[in-house]
């Protein structure tokens, strides 16, 4: 009984968070205020972190909070403030491409939903899957996936140098 209760709770949690995320995402792409868009993005990212917890990926969820909500969002807000003096609603954020964007997005959505429904149907996620501990994750990163990790270090290094070179005043 307890397990199924938990499952129901999980499901309810999932749908509440998912609804929040979808609303947030829609506001990100429709709002006419850049700062509001950034704040709605925080809602989506936090919701994603919550979904990661539901998916038994604690470490990724924590990283999501630290990196995205902690660092990336601050970067976005900095970028917004450095590039525009005014904080408030603006009319000039969208171009006139919505009649291209809407069909493309809807077509893509339809194709994906059909494919997913056909592909996975009512497949259930395992309810009692063992938690992937942080230790396992670190063994993965520094074991079989060491090479991508190295490549990633180079990407980050290049990004840091590139960002400094680009944003430097000279």
């Amino acid at each position, binding site marked *: 009984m307890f397990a199924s209760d938990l499952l129901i709770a999980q499901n309810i949690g999932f749908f509440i968070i998912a609804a929040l995320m979808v609303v947030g995402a829609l506001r990100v792409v429709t709002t006419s205020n850049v700062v509001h868009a950034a704040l709605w993005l925080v809602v989506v990212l936090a919701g994603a972190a919550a979904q990661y917890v539901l998916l038994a990926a604690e470490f990724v969820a924590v990283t999501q909070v630290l990196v995205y909500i902690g660092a990336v969002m601050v970067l976005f807000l900095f970028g917004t403030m450095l590039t525009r003096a005014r904080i408030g609603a603006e009319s000039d954020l969208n*171009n006139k*491409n919505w*009649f*291209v*964007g809407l069909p*493309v*997005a809807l*077509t*893509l959505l*339809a*194709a*994906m939903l*059909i*494919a997913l429904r*056909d592909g996975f149907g009512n497949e259930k996620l395992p309810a009692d899957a063992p938690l992937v501990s942080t230790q396992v994750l670190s063994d993965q990163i520094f074991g*079989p*996936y*060491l*090479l*991508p990790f190295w490549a990633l270090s180079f990407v980050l290094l290049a990004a840091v140098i590139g960002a400094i070179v680009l944003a430097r005043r000279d």
Partner: protein
Amino acid sequence: MFFATETVETVETVLKSGWFLENAWLIPLMPVIAFVLIIAYGKKMPMKGSEFGIASLLASLAISVGAAYQWIQRVDSAAPEAFIAPVIKTWTWWESAGFSFGIGQHIDGLSLTLLVVVTLISTLVEIYSVEYLRGDIRYTHFFGALTLFSAGMLNMVLAENMIQLILGWEIMGMCSFLLIGHWWEDGANSRAALKAFFTTRTGDIGLLVGTSVLFFASNAWTQKTLGISGFTIRGLSAWALSGDPGHAAITVGAVALFIACIGKSGQFPLHTWLPDAMAGPTPVSSLLHSSTMVVAGVYLVARLYPVFFTGMNILGTNLNLIVLIGGITIVIAAALAFVQADIKKVLAYSTVSQLGYMMMGLGAGAWLPAVFHIFTHAFFKACLFLCAGSVSHSASHHSFDMKKDMGGLRKFMPITFATWIISTLALCGVFPFSGFFSKDEIIDNVGHNGYTMFMVLGLTGAFLTAAYMTRATYLTFNGKPRGAAAGAHDSHDAHDTHDAHASRGPHESGLLITVPLMILAALALGAGFLNPAPLGEKWERMKHWVEPRPEVISPTGISVMASGPGEARVLTSPRAEEAEHESPCGTTTPTGGICVAPQLDHAPFKWSKALMSMLIVFLGGFLSWVLCVQLYGKKNPKLVGLTQRNKALGAGYLFLQNKYYLDALYEKVIVHGIAHPVAQAVYWFNQNIIDGVVNGFGTVVRKVSGWVYRNVDQRVVDGAVNGSAAVAQNAGSAIRPIQSGKVNQYGALLFGAAAIGALILVIINT
């Protein structure tokens, strides 16, 4: 090996090995070290870095020769029919996600042949370059790139697995780009470099696709049976002959790999880059674009021969992709060599044609003759190119135009002339020069294996070869000196920094140039005697040393006798009764054993056939000589300007001169004709959607018919006349609307295409 024994016997053979064989991986390492030294210290050295390159290549040459000697001892220590295991070493290069990638060496007769050839010719060419490029502005960089190229080629040749092979392959491609564009200040040179790079890259996609396909198809089998990954040469060879591969997988893999070979080895229809690549310095043409790099494709086919053997169904039918491409290339390239005025372009087309012989040989099951032709061709073609370089360096004022700036050089350059003649005779395949023993064997075996049509193509190619080489010889060395060779001084071009001696008129080149020429000519003369079929089996050392023996071995590498006839289901091929002994390799490998080489047989040598082909060669040479004397020597009015007067001949000449319009096809039809309508369509789409107005069917019809008129009628039909500048401009302006510069539109295009693609996939699958 007969199938007399009932029990599975293991024959313990102790094969000899030695230091050089075990440490052959040092061979590519030497030039790598030299490359680093040249880049770091080259400019400070007394000889500007060339000493590093030459020293490292001499060391590699010494190791290669030592290894070849020890390989011969290894072969001799084995029983006459025993399998000779290659000397394989592997270290783990990198590991990711459970896959491990090795690096190491795979040394057998084939790789040793190439190792010796590459190190020898690289050494000679570097010595020659010391003189030829003296005073060049990028002298040190030239030697750096040349040395790195040697490292790449050597690494590819002794590669233990496909990943290592791709590494060497791509290093060669990059160095080729650097060296063709060595004098990049001239726009034509950098264009040629780009063309070579892009054309070979087009083919290289096949290499990646083929390697991946073969890996995923074979890895399970190789891991289970041999305990090695599906990237290894040994694993792939054994897998291809095991009967395990599904037909589709191995065919797709082999075709994809062969596309890479077409690009790299300048086979039809991707041969157009090779003649343009002659824009590079002559030593580069000699080393990269005639004797070594361009045989990489041929080498790949020979290296992974079992894969191609099974994948292309060689010997199974009378036609396969390899033999077809090879045969077409022979004739098409040889015909093109007639209309060239540039001596290096004649040699370039000749190279393409000779590579066609090698491919045709491989495709028709003549493995050994093709490999032997790689060996002999390297010497005489390198020699011919270096002769051309010697002529332009010392006599014709850095011009390569035979019609304008050469002629009568026989008297001034006796050594160059003599070496040229020896190499030409070798190229034409005149007994007893080396080309005879290899080329004739290819033609002979192709006919013997039932590819009669291609034997005829080969003989036609031999006729054409003799004719165009006679024409080139006549124009260069006979008659009266013309233009620069006669002492005429026109304005100097860009890279004439080392020109003090040219004012002395034509003269023989210095020792640094003539000594490599003489060494190569001696090899062109004598190399054929390593495998002279006419002298009988005893003399065919190359066959004894190089050809892998189609024996059934156990996965650990020890020869096993095939199990009883009940198990070894030997398919009798139509030629089974002729062959001396029939091994199940290539048809049906018995369970429990593996093969790494298919059973091939050799055509018995007949003097009558050899005499016939010699007759054809002499006929070609003679006819061409007569024509040349009439046309260029006596200026026979009936012949001079015939192509202008006779319509049919003129059309043929124009057709050849425009290289079958292949370049025009690539630029006009593919770039222009396909990109243009796509761009037009997108533009139309943009205009109409943005305006929100559908202009109706009439506009479409008008636009389409207008487009047809403008492009099909005006451009394609008249297109041959319009220059390529106009093409580039038109193509550029055609794609302009797509390049609106608006990031959102790019995004819309990208995701729109993805959405449509996804939708199509969904519809197909439901």
